[in-house]
């Protein structure tokens, strides 16, 4: 499914929707960036509570389809700006990472 459909299904807040038609093919959740760079696959939805600027570079390099910030974590405007510059799909949810990943998406 596309990130736009995923966003609707999970009722996500849009922080930056750079490419609504990007295909989501799987998922990964984690906050330690080197683990994410080891485990996340191209096309994944990456669920994390990390919100510092480095998540944008990690999202770009791993080529995940989108980043979903869990637990409604605070995020600085400068990070959202960087997501715009790097064309990263960035969403947020009030739900926990567990709840987000527990939705039946059949990815």
């Amino acid at each position: 499914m596309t990130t736009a459909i995923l966003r609707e299904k999970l009722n996500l807040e849009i922080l930056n929707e750079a490419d609504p038609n990007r295909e989501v093919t799987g998922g990964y959740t984690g906050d330690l960036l080197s683990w994410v760079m080891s485990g996340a696959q191209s096309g994944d939805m990456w669920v994390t509570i990390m919100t510092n600027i480095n998540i944008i570079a990690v999202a770009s390099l791993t080529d995940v389809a989108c980043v979903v910030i869990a637990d409604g974590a605070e995020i600085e405007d400068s990070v959202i700006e960087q997501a715009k510059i790097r064309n990263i799909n960035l969403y947020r949810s009030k739900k926990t990472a567990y709840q987000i990943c527990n939705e039946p998406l059949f990815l």
Partner: protein
Amino acid sequence: MTKEPLRFHFDICGENFTSAGEASVSIKRILRQIGISPDIIRRVSIAMYECEINMVIHANGGTADVDVYTDKIILTLKDEGPGIPDLELAMQEGYSTAPDSIRSLGFGAGMGLPNMKKYTDVMDIKTEVGKGTTVTMTVFL
């Protein structure tokens, strides 16, 4: 006959942690422009990012050189930081000397060097305590 490589040079600033990763993100774009396959781009840019971040966190910056040949890409990252006293230990998954301030940003899992090894075909580290570290990584195309 080996054709001259395409060369790209980056200075990695050791002070600015928020812009760390710029060189790797640039390389990703450049490699895409010259038609390298997505899988190779992913491996090269993640390996370079891990190394770049290490230079910023552990060695106060340095330089990165990327040489693109017709059959391989060679990454050379060089710093004049403190060096790595026990390389075998540093290579182990989970070993990290990153301070708490860095850990709170999601780094310091001790997975960077193992990732660099995993994503490249050849990795060589020359390091001397008090002098610096040079990491050379090769990915075959």
